[in-house]
Structure formats: C-alpha cells, structure tokens
C-alpha cells in the first residue's frame, strides 16, 4: 500500500475524463433535454390555448344560436302582428265600403223617392188643374189664375 506514481497518473486520467465529460458529454445532452423540455412546454401551452379557443368558439356559437332564435321569434311575432293588422284593416275597409254603399244607395233611394213625389205632385197638380179646367172652363183664365195654381202646386 505505497503511495506512488500511480496517484499522479490516475489524477491525470481523472482530469482528462472530467474535461471530456464537461466538454463532450454534458453540454449536448443537457441541450437536448432542455430543448425537449421547451418543446413539451410549448406543446402544453398550445393545447391550453386551443382549449380556451374552443371554449370561446363554443360560447360564441351558443350566443349566435340564441340570438338567431330570438330574432326568428321576433320576426314571427312581427309577421303575425302585421297579418292581424292587415286583416283588421281589410275588415275596416270592407265595413267602410259597405256603409258607403249603403249610404249612397239610401241617398239615391231618397232622391228617387223625392223625384217620384215631385213627379207625382206635378201630375196631381196638373191633374187637379186639368180637372179644375174642365170644371171651370169658362170662368177660369189660365193666365190670370197661374199664380194661384203655382201656390197650390207648392202646397201639395
């Protein structure tokens, strides 16, 4: 068990191996490992991001769907209201036309009745005058008694 030259030679071998490991083994392996760690980290972050994106998109699609449904309900309601309104308007118009027609008919009828009445009056008057003429041929002068006859006609 002597301390001898072996010690120094082993120390030199040790130094060479340390140098070798520190320059050719450790750095490339550590680079590979840290690069892989970075890749995994990025991959995880990307997955997280896309998950969030998906959630956002889902929320957005739900919103859009709900909005569309609301809008369509609104539209249906509007259309129904409009239809009801149209029907109402048509009904009112029809009533108006009917009453107008009735009024016109009534007016015409009244005018016709009036005319008939006047005709009748005229005829009665002329008939009366003719009768009276026949009776009073001699005594009555048509020209003298025209005023009297007119007042009689208006009284009829």
């Amino acid at each position: 068990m002597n301390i001898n030259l072996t010690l120094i030679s082993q120390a030199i071998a040790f130094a060479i191996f340390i140098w070798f490991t520190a320059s050719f083994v450790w750095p490339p392996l550590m680079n590979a490992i840290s690069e892989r760690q970075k890749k995994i980290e990025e991959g995880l972050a990307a997955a997280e991001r896309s998950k969030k994106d998906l959630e956002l998109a889902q929320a957005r699609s739900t919103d859009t769907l709900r909005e569309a449904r609301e809008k369509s309900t609104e539209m249906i309601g509007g259309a129904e209201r409009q239809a009801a309104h149209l029907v109402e308007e048509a009904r009112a118009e029809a009533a108006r036309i009917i009453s107008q027609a009735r009024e016109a008919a009534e007016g015409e009828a009244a005018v016709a009745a009036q005319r008939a009445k006047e005709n009748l009056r005229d005829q009665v008057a002329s008939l009366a005058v003719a009768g009276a003429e026949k009776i009073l041929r001699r005594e009555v002068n048509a020209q003298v008694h025209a005023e009297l006859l007119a007042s009689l006609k208006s009284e009829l």
Partner: protein
Amino acid sequence: MSTGALTPTTYINHHLSFFAKPLGEGTFWTLHVDSLLTAVLLGVVGFGFLWWVVRGATSGVPSKLQAFVELSVEFVDDQAKGIFHGDRHKFVAPLALTVFVWVLLMNAMDFLPVDIMAWVYEHVLGLSNWHSVPTADINTTFALSISVWLLMIFFSIKVKGLGGWIHELFCTPFGSNPLLWIFNLMFNLVEYVSKPLSHSLRLYGNMYAGEIIFLLLGMWAATGLVGTIFGALLGAGWAIFHILIVVLQAFIFMMLTIVYISMAHESH
C-alpha cells in the same frame, strides 16, 4: 502463482499485490500498471459509451439507450441541483457525473470472481499479480480525493479571492477576534486534512474490505467440501450485498465531491 507452497498468506498476498513497474529510484517511482490501465480502460469504455449515445442525442423522442443515459445524467444533475447553488452545468455537475460513472465502473470490477480472473490474467494474458479493482488501490482513491481537494481550494480562491480565502482560514468558524485566529486556523487545517483523507479512505476501505472478504471466503474452499459449499454460498451472498456497496460508495463519493465543491463556493 503456484511457485512455492500455497498458504493463506501467499494466497492473499498474491491477490492483493499489484502489477508494479518501477520507473526510477525509491518506492515512489513505481507505477501500478494494473490500476492505471484498468481505470483508463473503464473510463474510455464508460465515457466513450456516454459520448457515443450523446452524439446521436435528439431533442425529440429519445431512443431507449438515450433515455437510460438521460435518466442517469438527470439523477446526477438532481443531486448537484440540490446541493450546489449556481451554474452547475459549467463544471460541478459534469464533475459529479465523471466521478459517479468512473468510480461505479471501477468498483464494479469487484464483481469479477478473483480467482478466475487471476487465472485469466496469468494464463491468457500472461500477467501475474494483476489486480482487477482500481478503487481497492489507495493511489486511485487518493488521486480522486486530492484532485477534488485541489479543485475545492481552487474554487475557494476563485470565488472569494486569495484574501477572502485566507480571511476565512483565520476568521471562521469562531469569529474574527485576533485571539481566536490560531484556533480558527487549526480548526480549518484539521478540516482541510480530514476532507481528502476521509473522502478517499472511505472508498478505499470499503472496496479493500470487500475484496478481503471474497478472498477469505475463497480460502474456505481450501478446507474441504463443506467449506467449499459454505464458501460459495456466502460468497454469493456477499456478492449480492456488494452490489449495494459498489453503488452506494460511488454515490457517496459523488455526493461528497459535490458537497466539497459547493462548500468552497459559499462564504461562511
């Protein structure tokens, strides 16, 4: 191996001696070729494997091999992250990985059956007294711990400056009163001496003791059939337990390395 009588002493001595090559005068100038060559081979194989996998590393879906390497590296990196506060990727974490992988591989040489390996070394490769486990050689563990110790001092001075480091030697942990300087210094010196000693001797002791127990169990086989059976059973049990020790000691050595280096970065 088999020149002379095979006694327990020669058996153990044979297995615990190194393939030493003298390079000069005195006991210091010898080289344990077996420790050095095994350690370097294991390092080349281990770090070569890592490099080969890392070279084809992708940041996409990793292959099974890359996943395994990443798992091991992240295990080491987690330990470094827990202890060291600062940019660990520049030096501390790679250092910890180097220590862990290398020590683990060197410790794992203990799993090779001693006697079969000795036969292979001697009769196939023509190497006598070839020792398999580099970490059961105190030179290897001290080489590691003293390197870490020097790095610790280097980072202390680099982070705190030479003045800061000397200030810390004299003024911590008791306080900056001049009366306390000598106690602080002694305390710090004890700490500086004990760190590399405990660091290396813990690993060395565990590996050395593990080998000795394998050898003692192997020696039991020499006493007859019953001894052989019990020796084999207990040897298997010890080998299984040794899996824990091998990994645990590599882990402890790495953790202490990180702790020492991070302590050097922090001011008291």
